[in-house]
């Protein structure tokens, strides 16, 4: 004997917590809900309930638009197990207007070679009857055609 299979299967009841639940419930209604830090004023989305800079609760909910910019992105060409989207595709960090932190989203409706840092994008939501408390409620982000944001306006988010 040289090898031993020791499979481990663990089942959990997971809670994302109070703040992230607000974010997820917002997605189920087709909108983005962030939270503001009472000390530094920054708006986090999704918020984990705490300002990671100040270590204080982020109590105040902030409704954010579903428009923003691509801060940075990559072109995924490598297939992997469980992949749900055809390659190549664009995974981008999207900074919503009014937010102070970016989160990851897909970019579609544009050739991979045309995606740019600073490109303005808007969320494309699933059909209303498919909305749920999950990031899958956002199908992807698409270009709005608006003018690119200057680099200086988002360099601190890279």
């Amino acid at each position, binding site marked *: 004997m040289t090898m031993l299979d020791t499979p481990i299967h663990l089942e959990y*009841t997971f809670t994302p917590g109070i703040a992230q639940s607000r974010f997820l419930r917002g997605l189920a209604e087709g909108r983005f809900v962030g939270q503001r830090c009472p000390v530094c004023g920054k708006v986090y989305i999704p918020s984990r309930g705490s300002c990671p800079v100040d270590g204080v609760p982020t109590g105040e909910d902030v409704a954010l638009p579903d428009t923003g910019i691509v801060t940075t992105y990559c072109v995924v060409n490598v297939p992997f197990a469980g992949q749900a989207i055809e390659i190549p595709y664009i995974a981008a960090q999207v900074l919503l207007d009014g937010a102070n932190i970016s989160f990851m989203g897909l970019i579609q409706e544009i050739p991979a070679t045309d995606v740019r840092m600073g490109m303005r994008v808007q969320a494309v939501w699933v059909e209303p009857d498919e909305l749920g408390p999950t990031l899958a409620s956002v199908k992807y982000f698409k270009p709005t055609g608006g003018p690119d944001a200057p680099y200086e306006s988002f360099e601190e988010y890279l």
Partner: protein
Amino acid sequence: MAEGDALIAAHVLDYPYSRSVGPVIGAFLTGLRDGRIVGARTPSGGVVVPPTEYDPQTGEDVGEIVEVGPAGTVESWAWVTTPGPKQPLDHPFAYALIRLDGATTSMLHVVDAGSPDALATGDRVVPRWKPAADRIGHVLDIEAFVPEGASGGGAASGGATATAGSAAGGAS
């Protein structure tokens, strides 16, 4: 949905690990597959079962692999009335520390004794092996230990099914 504000969701983690076992534990698992129990001799003359690559007390390298048991003595035992879904038997059983004949440490395994009244510290137990064709080199190639002499169970009784065990399910 939880009461109040927070969401909850089912969440499953699977770790499909496959481990390399090395020569010492490999010898132990190979022995189990072949229906034998082996240990490792330490420099101070002890025999560690299950074997480790080192003396568990001093850390020195172990020496030759030696066969022990298959019978042994119950050093301590704990009676599980409600087995968990992953535990080896589906009816009440004992986890036990078993000092196999020839060993100087005890091995953790299960004893299918039927009832806590049928087990005591110091009792002699023997392994109830899985059928040879079903053994894969795993600690559960021994289905369970059973009291020596109980219902004809013995070291060589390959395919024996639970004897006292099935009766015990209703007894508790």
